[in-house]
């Protein structure tokens, strides 16, 4: 009887240990520190080559898009420091200047943050727009792409 109980205890222990090992190694491999631009400035050199996340506001007027080489560059700020970011590829839907964004990547020796993923933040708060925008305004933007209505 005792021997059997021991057997189950041992089996349970092995399962638990395997689980713990899996969690530990998983965490260790994929844990990513989140920095603000100011924190990044302090710790950038120490963290070179390690995966990081940096979150801040996309600086107005800083967004550049090179369509041929698919480089997107912009700057993230927390009001005190500003980090230049380069990203290969396009940004997700909610990304825009003036809004929050989190980028994941590494600090490049050339002095910019090389992003592999952009996560756009978007506020669910209700704000009445200063000037309610109509569909016409959006239409005006893409007038050159509109075809004459065929009828």
């Amino acid at each position, binding site marked *: 009887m005792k021997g059997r109980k021991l057997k189950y205890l041992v089996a349970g222990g092995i399962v638990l240990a395997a689980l713990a090992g899996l969690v530990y190694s998983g965490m260790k*491999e994929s844990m990513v520190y989140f920095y603000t631009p100011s924190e990044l400035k302090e710790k950038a050199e120490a963290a070179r080559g390690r995966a990081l996340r940096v979150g801040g506001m996309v600086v107005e007027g800083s967004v550049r898009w090179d369509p041929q080489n698919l480089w997107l560059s912009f700057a993230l700020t927390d009001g005190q420091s500003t980090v230049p970011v380069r990203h290969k590829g396009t940004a997700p839907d909610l990304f825009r200047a003036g809004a929050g964004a989190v980028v994941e990547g590494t600090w490049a020796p050339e002095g910019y943050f090389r992003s592999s993923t952009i996560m756009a933040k978007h506020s669910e708060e209700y704000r009445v727009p200063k000037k309610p925008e109509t569909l016409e305004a959006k239409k005006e933007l893409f007038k050159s792409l509109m075809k004459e209505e065929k009828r």
Partner: protein
Amino acid sequence: MIATLGGFVLFLALGVTLYGAATSIAGARAGREDLLASSRNAILAHCCLVTLAIVLLEYALITSDFSLRYVVGNSTRGSLTRYKIAGLWGSLEGSILLWAWLQSVFAALVAARYHDRHQAYLPYVQAVLLGISAFFLTVMTFGANPFARIFPVPPDGRGLNPLLEVTDMLIHPLLLYLGYVGFSVPFAFAMASLITGRVSEEWLKITRRWTVVAWLFLTGGIFYGGWWSYRTLGWGGYWAWDPVENASFMPWLTGTAFIHSVMIQERKRMLKVWNLALITLTFSLVIFGTFLTRSGILGSVHAFAGGPVGALFLGFLAVILLVSLSLIAYRSDRLKGHGELDSIVSRESAFLLNNVVLVGICFTVFLGTVFPLLTEAIRGAKISVGSPYFNRVSVPLGLALLLLMGVGPLIAWGRASLSNLRRNFLKPLMGAAVGTAILWGAGVREAEALVALFFCCFVLGTILYEFVVATRTRAKTTGEGALLALGALLLRSRRRYGGLIVHLGVVVAVVGIAVSSVYKVEREQTLQPGERLRIGSYAIQFDGLEAAERPTHVLVWANLKAFKGDKLVADLMPGQRFYPNQQTPFASVDARYHWSEDLYLILSTFERNGSSATIKAMINPMISWIWVGGLVILLGVIVAVLPERRLALLGARAKAQAA
């Protein structure tokens, strides 16, 4: 007007609910039938009142009554009526009202269905269900009032996020809520069994069907959410380990464990405490998930901002855990198991191991979801653990689960002899080896894919083997044809064969998940009109941009032709939708769906003069198998839960006609 009336109705409903719970318990203790009758009326009244509250809020939404803050936030004059209706679950207050309503309907259903049965349990079941209802009504009365006013009354509302103005919004959230609320029924019976001390297998048998149906809704909601995300969110994926997804996944894992472990208790009278703990855990995780995602403490694409609601949910969670754990401790003397595990090589231990793995996955998902919160609270460092962690940890555990799915249903109870093992597993194993060799020959070289597909072949082999052997045996003994024998088998042991069909669905889905995640290809390129992007065996030609006005937005799209060799296989038009009052566009994905692979195209960005467009192309092989797997699971559950009597009747009628 509606604001005052709505608030009053909710307050009244709260009063009736508390009264019903009190009379239920008092009636049961004193054995007074009049009090019990009164409590049943209270359940009905509380259901009617919450229904009235829902009708009022829907009326305000449909008629665009912008004196209500909630209506302003979740609808606009211009929306289609169905999206105005869906505004009800567009954010926090309304979704709590929806939850409270479903909860009240379930309570009424339970009271109506069992009005003449299980009288020992029922008063306490009703009290627990009413207690849960009371919690949601309290949240609305004191924290998140859906009938709050706004002043000045704005001319128009903000409306739902355009991402949500799709038909899926009418289905996915409802499925999830039905699943969440559904688990409250077995939970209530579990509590009632503890309170009354009738802790035998009775409560499991009563709630079996409720549990499986709740599980089906939750599973359906999760699959549907993935499908929705894949088709419309424009990132080509279906699961991101987002906290809200995890919040629905965790109760699914423990609920799945529960469905399996009750079978051991029914058969062997073991694991009584474990089953009670599992259903408590499942319901607690439902509440915890809601706390996590609705209190705004975690960043998530699904999250709603919240206020005191978070604290209320946390308090409720504490009450659930405290009460149920004390009850289990109080009844511990009656909860001693009768059976013992005879051998490690047995069905019991396969099921037990399945439970350990499922709860283990749940635990790792839980850790990954709350770890960032903990480290921030304790060390002040912000840390995130993203998809890599979840994938790393859940893939090996998921594979173990897959293997057990093949072993569990066929291995003998008690102690499996070597001959039993050989008889049941030799052929499936050989089949899996042959299948994997064929895949190797077809060019599958990646270790992850090979292991996953080997396990899939093995499970598939065991399921087919079981069906074939059982059909053949029956056909031989009864002299029926093979098809008739199979049908009779499905009818006779629907739970077993329904379960096997569910497993088949899981295998199909796992094949889709494994192949699509290992073999997906992605390319992004900027094209000028006439240029082509090459991906896999496709060439995608860009034929210019176009724009047009739609009722609610302006759509800009790229005209693309997909060629395979010289053959045109599809005209695809991925685009971007520009909504008024939204500063960024929303993707409008286009794809060629096919059973073998999806060609998935996204218009990433473009020049406004039409001179170029950046196209992201993906090939997602066999991803549609995931959705097909979901449908097979649905089929299996339907086979498993269809009412016995009705089927027997149908069978008898068919036999009479044949004779």
